[in-house]
């Protein structure tokens, strides 16, 4: 033990509140350290002083006798109906047979609810398998978007919109620094909707790139255009135009950076259903994304 550690526990040592191992460690240190020994001796004197003086201090705290008399005579209000229910329930629950009965009923209820939930979840594979894959891995698909900001959705709303259940992991694989998936709805020029479930990754300080190569350029630019439009700058229009050109020129470099992060893999899975395109993307190897996709099937 170091001097600091010993001095931190000397109070507990005085109060006989240390384990036998800790006590031995303290005593061993004290026998070898003059400084701590001196501090300990001062604490012993302090302890003696406190034993002598504190009882007087404590007795000096005297309640007003009139207050105590008032307290004794205090009219305690009738216990309310709610308190009586709590009181009665509490005393009933002390009866072992009743407590067991309540526990059994609760367990049956939990099992019934779980069975219902499980049968609900079992419908997922059928629903997801009804969807048609609309692109091969690595294939670049253009999906012209109506240039307007996407609408963000909660996972529950995305389930409603997609017409099937989604339950995506909210954590990245170890080593990937990012956030839970984001659900967004985009309007496509052909009248369909695109629901994008994306795992995001920040690739520089200014930009969160939504990883997918499937319609990605359009998605990405739509988001960035909206952001640029909202910026208040002098010479706004020329500035915005310059930013967009800069952005388009830089986008290939961003993809290269994403590829580097993913080990060169393109990661985007998507399915179609009538008027809906559903896309699942993430900044990790394809294998990992497949695993996530399987987990929702």
């Amino acid at each position, binding site marked *: 033990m170091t001097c600091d550690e010993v001095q931190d526990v000397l109070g507990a040592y005085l109060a006989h509140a240390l384990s036998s191992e800790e006590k031995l460690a303290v005593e061993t240190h004290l026998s070898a350290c003059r400084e701590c020994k001196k501090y300990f001796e001062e604490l012993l*004197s302090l302890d003696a002083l406190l034993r002598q003086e504190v009882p007087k201090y404590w007795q000096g705290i005297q309640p007003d006798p009139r207050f105590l008399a008032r307290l004794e005579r205090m009219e305690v209000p009738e216990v309310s109906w709610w308190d009586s229910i709590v*009181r009665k329930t509490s005393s009933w629950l002390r009866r072992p047979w009743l407590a067991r009965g309540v526990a059994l009923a609760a367990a049956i209820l939990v099992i019934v609810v779980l069975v219902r939930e499980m049968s609900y979840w079992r419908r997922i594979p059928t629903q997801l398998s009804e969807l048609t894959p609309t692109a091969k891995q690595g294939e670049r698909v253009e999906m012209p978007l109506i240039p307007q900001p996407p609408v963000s959705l909660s996972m529950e709303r995305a389930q409603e919109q997609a017409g099937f259940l989604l339950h995506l992991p909210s954590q990245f694989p170890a080593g990937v620094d990012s956030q839970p998936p984001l659900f967004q709805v985009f309007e496509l020029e052909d009248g369909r909707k695109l629901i994008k479930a994306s795992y995001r990754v920040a690739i520089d300080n200014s930009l969160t790139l939504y990883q997918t190569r499937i319609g990605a350029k359009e998605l990405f630019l739509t988001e960035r255009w909206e952001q640029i439009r909202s910026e208040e700058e002098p010479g706004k229009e020329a500035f915005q135009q310059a930013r967009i050109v800069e952005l388009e020129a830089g986008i290939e470099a961003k993809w290269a950076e994403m590829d580097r992060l993913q080990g060169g893999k393109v990661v985007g899975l998507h399915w179609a259903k009538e008027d809906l395109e559903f896309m699942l993307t993430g900044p990790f190897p394809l294998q990992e994304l497949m695993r996530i996709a399987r987990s929702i099937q």
Partner: protein
Amino acid sequence: MRFAMEGSLADALTLTNEPTLVVQARAGNQEAFAELVRRHGAQAYRIAFALLRNRSDAEDVVQDAFLTAFRLLATLKDPSAFRSWLNRIVVNRSRDLLRRRRQEQESIPLLGQSMVNDSLPGRQIERTVALGQAIDSLPELHRLVILLYYSQGYSTGEIAETIDRPPGTVRRILSEAYKMLHSALGKGRFIHDMR
């Protein structure tokens, strides 16, 4: 809810053991409740006052704590634990009030003077006052832990129950309190006088 009581019954109550009193109070016996107040009122007040350092706040907290205790008596599983349970309510209520009042009210000097006895030699009076002031200047939980330990002979386990903290925390508070007192008393200037 009050009812008349024969003197002999009141006398008998003072001899009744505590768990029985608690059971009687739980059944609505007001006199049993009054006896619990007689037994624990002053101690509850001292705890509240040690934390709050304000007479009227301490009275409010203690009254409120007894009312709460009476209402919740049915939830107390072990009647023999009434004292530490009540004290815990007092500590929690006091600390709630302190949080609300901390910005509003100046605390008053407590007991530096109350320990002084005029017949003591000058140097001893000075040391007693210094110790009282050092105790007053401790943070409230540290003050209460030191007071309960040295005036009531509470074990660290009992203190942990009273202040509703783990025993390890009480050990830490105790060690910190010693350090603070040691430092406040001039690193041994008064302490050495004890030798």
